[in-house]
């Protein structure tokens, strides 16, 4: 049992240890032995231990209402107050464990993956910065400090995506990620300010109280909710701001696993989970549609991608859409549950892809082949004999993501789908949400097995490269094995053993709270609906998963169905999916280009008109005036007055000098005259 003070101390340590590692590595990393990676790894492992001890404490307490808040005043300007503080409850603790676990695995995995990198110490420093900011988001007890860490996460994402900034595409991707996130963050900030204006506080609890007292309501609350959700749209890469995440795969693969799969992109979901009680029914509907649409839409892109990391990236977007959908339909505990399970199996998949890419890269390097893309699945095939551990762990993670029973993804996805189904049963006009959910589930199963079959099964496509493929070293396979292990259902259902029910420590310790907005169903009502829809949802999700896996098996394993023929049959749709629905192109044509045109026009006005005539005119006038005053100053003041004083002194001196004749007789005469004057003066 821990007291509040100890929890605060632990939180402080968890928050600041990675920052310490960052500071040490960024300044002294190069001079330390092994470029300081042990500092970062040590710091993160301590963080992990601390987080796990919080988790164990949570289990010992077994209190679903546990909540601990510690805060201090940061800025106090009377009515405007900003506090810094922690709000630790069960959600926070689970999230801390996820962040520090995945971060630790990334640190370990990178020991081998990033070996010999040019900016090795900087890489580890940035990982520390990221972990610090992510933990800051997780621990924040108010919107303002959350927003600060939110932006810090954006910065570290920018730095890590652009780690190999010599590559043009990486530099572009980092910029794209940062700027796209800014778009969402503007909405986020507007949402924060709307909330603050109405309620006068940033603190979560005070916001909940304020909303429940009706200090903000109606359209304004919906607007504020949508604004806050926009932050999540940006960070969690939801439609229409999803474009940055696939490009972010330019970063090192362990970074993709840590940030762009498990934790950073989950920050948006975490935010909506945290703020769930604030959202009005209208805002929740919008959230549900955005999430549901993203889930299906991103999944449909993932089908046709050939880059192994791109498939995973779109899969991540899709799974995040699932979570957002779950928040939208009110089942936010399921969203958080999926966040937890997804973090494990998706990180595992990313490490697996990293392991494959690593092997491909080395094999191609040995063949002096620098043109073949080591990430293209069309160059792989049959790797299962060469990389057994990677194969098995990735297959387990794939089974989990596809929603196969006995794996974690089944439980969480099932909970989400049950929630969606319950919502649709209540509101039949939103039947589209269920279509999104189950459709995406089928497609997910399909493209994930496509990835497995194309990579690990079948005939090697490039036999020469295949010769050089070998299993990655232990530091890389260890995280794989650990995370694959955590993809089994058991870790989430303990102390129960029923693989078909998500009933376990998670659902017992993390209980939904009621929304504070009137008009929303209570947590009990939502739970009731989910409970009723549970078996139907399970049946349906099993059916669609089987469908997806079966289709994938027929196409890519048995080759009974030719993917090419199908692609030909659905030419238009195939092209649409392959080109990601031309989003980048359309954004380019309808957003960037017009904006650039506008910018150019504005630049023309600014530079050619305003600057050239107005500003330069000002300059010219100033010039003339300066010359005038210069002349006044020089000729008038300097030459006449200042020099005049000198000249008059000189002239006077010259005159007086004449008195100094050098003739003693004259001096005597003057003395005489002086005496006479004195006498006369005396006489008078």
């Amino acid at each position: 049992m821990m007291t509040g003070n100890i929890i605060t101390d632990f939180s402080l340590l968890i928050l600041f240890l990675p920052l310490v590692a960052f500071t040490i590595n960024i300044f002294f990393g190069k001079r330390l032995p092994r470029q300081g990676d042990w500092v970062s790894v040590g710091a993160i492992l301590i963080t992990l231990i601390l987080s796990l001890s919080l988790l164990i404490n949570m289990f010992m307490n077994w209190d679903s209402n546990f909540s601990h808040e510690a805060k201090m005043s940061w800025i106090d300007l009377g009515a405007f107050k900003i506090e810094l503080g922690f709000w630790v409850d069960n959600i926070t603790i689970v999230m801390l464990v996820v962040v520090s676990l995945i971060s630790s695995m990334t640190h370990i995995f990178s020991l081998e993956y990033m070996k010999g990198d040019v900016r090795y110490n900087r890489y580890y420093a940035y990982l520390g910065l990221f972990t610090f900011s992510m933990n800051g988001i997780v621990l924040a007890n108010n919107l303002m400090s959350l927003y600060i860490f939110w932006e810090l996460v954006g910065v570290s994402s920018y730095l890590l995506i652009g780690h190999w900034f010599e590559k043009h595409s990486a530099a572009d991707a980092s910029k794209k990620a940062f700027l796209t996130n800014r778009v969402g963050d503007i909405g986020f900030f507007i949402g924060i300010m709307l909330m603050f204006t109405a309620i006068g506080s940033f603190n979560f609890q005070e916001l909940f109280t304020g909303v429940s007292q009706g200090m903000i309501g109606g359209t304004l609350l919906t607007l504020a909710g949508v604004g806050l959700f926009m932050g999540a749209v940006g960070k969690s890469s939801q439609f229409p701001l999803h474009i940055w995440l696939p490009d972010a795969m330019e970063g090192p693969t362990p970074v993709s696993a840590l940030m762009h799969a498990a934790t950073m992109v989950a920050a948006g979901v975490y935010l909506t989970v945290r703020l769930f009680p604030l959202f009005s029914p209208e805002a929740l509907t919008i959230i549900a549609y955005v999430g549901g649409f993203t889930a299906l839409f991103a999944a449909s892109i993932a089908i046709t991608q050939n880059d192994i990391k791109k498939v995973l990236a779109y899969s991540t977007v899709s799974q995040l859409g699932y979570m957002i959908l779950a928040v939208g339909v009110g089942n936010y505990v399921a969203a958080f549950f999926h966040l937890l399970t997804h973090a494990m199996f998706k990180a595992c998949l990313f490490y697996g892809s990293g392991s494959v890419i690593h092997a491909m890269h080395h094999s191609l390097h040995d063949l002096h082949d620098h043109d073949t893309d080591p990430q293209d699945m069309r160059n792989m095939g049959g790797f299962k004999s060469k990389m057994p551990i990677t194969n098995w762990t990735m297959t387990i993670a794939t089974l989990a993501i596809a929603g196969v029973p006995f794996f974690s993804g089944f439980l969480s996805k099932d909970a989400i789908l049950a929630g969606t189904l319950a919502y649709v049963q209540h509101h039949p006009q939103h039947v589209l949400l269920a279509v999104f959910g189950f459709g995406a589930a089928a497609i997910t199963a399909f493209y994930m097995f496509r990835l497995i079959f194309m990579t690990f099964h079948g005939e090697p496509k490039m036999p020469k490269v295949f010769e050089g493929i070998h299993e990655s070293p232990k530091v890389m396979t260890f995280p794989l094995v650990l995370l694959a292990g955590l993809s089994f259902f058991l870790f989430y259902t303990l102390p129960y053993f029923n693989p078909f029910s998500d009933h376990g420590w998670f659902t017992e310790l993390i209980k939904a709270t009621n929304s504070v907005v009137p008009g929303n169903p209570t947590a009990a009502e939502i739970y009731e609906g989910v409970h009723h829809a549970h078996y139907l949802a399970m049946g349906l999700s099993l059916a669609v998963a089987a469908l997806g896996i079966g289709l994938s098996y027929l196409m890519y394993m048995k080759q009974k169905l030719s993917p090419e023929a199908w692609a030909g049959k659905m030419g238009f749709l195939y092209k649409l999916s392959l080109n990601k629905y031309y989003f980048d192109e359309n954004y380019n044509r309808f957003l960037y280009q017009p904006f650039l045109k506008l910018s150019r026009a504005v630049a023309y006005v600014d530079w050619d008109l305003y600057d050239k005539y107005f500003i330069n005119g000002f300059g010219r006038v100033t010039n003339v005036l300066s010359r005038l005053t210069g002349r006044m100053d020089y000729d008038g003041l300097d030459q006449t007055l200042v020099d005049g004083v000198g000249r008059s002194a000189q002239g006077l001196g010259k005159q007086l000098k004449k008195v100094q004749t050098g003739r003693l007789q004259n001096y005597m005469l003057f003395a005489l005259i002086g005496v006479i004057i004195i006498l006369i003066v005396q006489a008078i």
Partner: protein
Amino acid sequence: MASLSSYLLVGAVLFSLGLYGVVTRRNGVAVLMGVELILNAANVNFLAFARFGGMNMAGHVYALFVIVLAAAEAAVALAIIINIFNNFNTINVDEVSELKQ
């Protein structure tokens, strides 16, 4: 007629003449003679005050001192004039204006 003021008048005339000589003469020796006249004007005054003004013997003693001093002064000044002549080849005091550069 033999009163203090008439003696003083003689002294003043002598002084003025001496001063005039000192200020106007160009010749160094003439300047020296002017100085002698001034000294003797002083002597006349001393003696006049000794006779009429109650200075008594002190006036006489001072007068003697002045005569001695005048003799010494004449000796030194003449030596200076000779040196000036040696250096500048003139005894015109206007040309001996080393003080003014």
